[in-house]
């Protein structure tokens, strides 16, 4: 029961209109009902309200997500559609309802500013956006800096797929066992380099949570890997092989071979 509640709360957290836009959304409802309630309620409010209350309801989304695993994503997006409709519509109605033209202009500018600061205009107001600082955070920077430093000493690195794109994008040509060419700029199509079966086996084992981490490190050692970077998971902690933990962050474990070759 507790797990169910947690699950639904997480879904709610994911689908709710987080931040100040939620406040704007609530104000929009008040504005729409006060400005022209009779006209607005059927055409603009009820259809979207039904979508929000039923389709984008965390309970519905959770029930459907039991059958369709990626459904939560759509529920979340549907819940946010009203933002696209209610806020601009309420702002428009509010401006049009004012008779004085100077007041209209002033209100227009105020509303533009208000929506901008409630959101994240041009990334100026923080938030979890695609700007570099959020996307490529301090923890990852620390890992990449470690990988850069190790690579300058000639180390070969094995990294799991979660951190790999960051190493290839932000690292300084860090030698890695596989995936060197993932998401390179321009048309470097090196992703088609044929890796041998052993490397493919390592990659598959890195994904497989039932695999013993010792067998991964044994194979990685055979391929001459000096550093292994993995996201924290239980089996990594029990590892006792030819590598030692050299760096720990909140999400990553970095193993270093006992004697750097």
């Amino acid at each position, binding site marked *: 029961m507790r797990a169910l509640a947690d699950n639904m709360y997480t879904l709610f957290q994911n689908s709710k209109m987080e931040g100040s836009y939620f406040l704007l959304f609530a104000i929009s409802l008040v504005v729409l009902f006060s400005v022209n309630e009779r006209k607005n309620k059927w055409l603009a409010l009820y259809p979207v309200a039904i979508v929000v209350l039923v389709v984008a309801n965390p309970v519905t989304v959770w029930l459907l997500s039991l059958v369709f695993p990626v459904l939560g994503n759509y529920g979340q997006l549907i819940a946010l559609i009203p933002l696209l409709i209610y806020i601009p519509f309420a702002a428009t109605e509010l401006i049009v309802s004012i008779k004085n033209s100077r007041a209209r202009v002033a209100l227009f500018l105020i509303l533009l500013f208000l929506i901008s600061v409630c959101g994240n205009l041009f990334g100026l107001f923080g938030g979890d956006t695609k700007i570099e600082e959020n996307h*490529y955070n301090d923890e990852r920077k620390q890992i990449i800096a470690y990988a850069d430093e190790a690579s300058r000493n000639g180390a070969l690195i094995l990294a799991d797929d979660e951190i790999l794109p960051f190493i290839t994008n932000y690292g300084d040509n860090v030698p890695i066992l596989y995936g060197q060419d993932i998401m390179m700029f321009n048309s470097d199509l090196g992703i088609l380099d044929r890796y041998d079966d052993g490397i493919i086996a390592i990659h598959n084992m890195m994904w497989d949570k039932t695999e013993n981490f010792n067998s991964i490190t044994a194979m990685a050692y055979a391929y001459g890997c000096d550093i292994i970077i993995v996201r924290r998971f239980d089996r990594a902690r029990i590892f006792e092989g030819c590598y030692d933990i050299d760096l720990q962050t909140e999400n990553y474990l970095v193993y270093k071979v006992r004697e750097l070759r």
Partner: protein
Amino acid sequence: MDILGIIVIITMPYMAGYILKCVVNNKEISQIETYLTGFFFVFLLQGVVTFIQYMIRGCSFDKLCSSYNIAFIVLTAAFLACVIARLILRIVKGKGEKVYHPKFRKVEYVLIAIALVLFVGIVLRVVGLLDYLRLDMMLPTIRTTLATGTIYEYNPITSEPFTLGLIASKKIISLPIFYAYICRLFGIAEPILIYVIMTLQTLVCTVFACLIFMMPVLRSRVKSILFTVFLAVVILSGDYFSGSIGFKLLWNGYSGDAIVAGTILPYVMYIITDWYRSIRDAGEKAWSPAVINLLKLILCVGASLFITGITSGILLIMIEASLLGVASIIRYKIEEGKK
């Protein structure tokens, strides 16, 4: 070639929409709805071509590209035929009644200028952050497809062959294949195509879809432009957390779920809420409005099928359509009861 490609990508939906408009012979379909239906039709068409050639006949990427080429030529020829037919009809029958469009007022020019500035702001923001937008699977999938000439045969991350193959619900998603085709045909760099061109096209179509849905309430042109300006600000400022729709539209506009959420779902809302009105005000028409609305709905479902797979996108469209349908029926019953 890049510029030609961009022009074709931008105009192709209108060409497709114009053909549909001519087929149903409905003058009430506005220009933006023409563009929007064409946008969906292009996705449906590429999906059908991919399904037949790849899923049923098992053709290679090269042969699939030939089929896309044929479909593209047919589409262009059909568009030209429609334009010529309309011109001939106009010459034979005369221009008909001139539709009166009120002149633009100063305030409208100013608002349009503001909307354009915001659009440029969105373009600059997307282009400015291009280097940080490379961490998803679409780009390597397109590159793998282009480089190997195969479809879904290699894991784009590891280059390992998919020995067991993909399940049908994944195989049916033909969007990366279509993007790969466009890149090959016009020589456009893959990141530019998906992160800039397709994202901006989805953004514009999102504005169109929301405008169409709101048109019966907005009514006047000034209000429509004002709505567009505020909508642009909401999108531009709306990426304040990774689950927001602004985030999805600004940074993942090329993906199937962004297209479904941003354009198809609002358009489905419009189709359903406008269903009764269109039938009531239809008069004598070659095609029944119910049939046209049904075709629009099928178009949305079909496009969703090929860009998001056979599960969630379609399911939500159907749920949304049925719920709004019931709500609309109740609404009109109440209105009729009052009369």
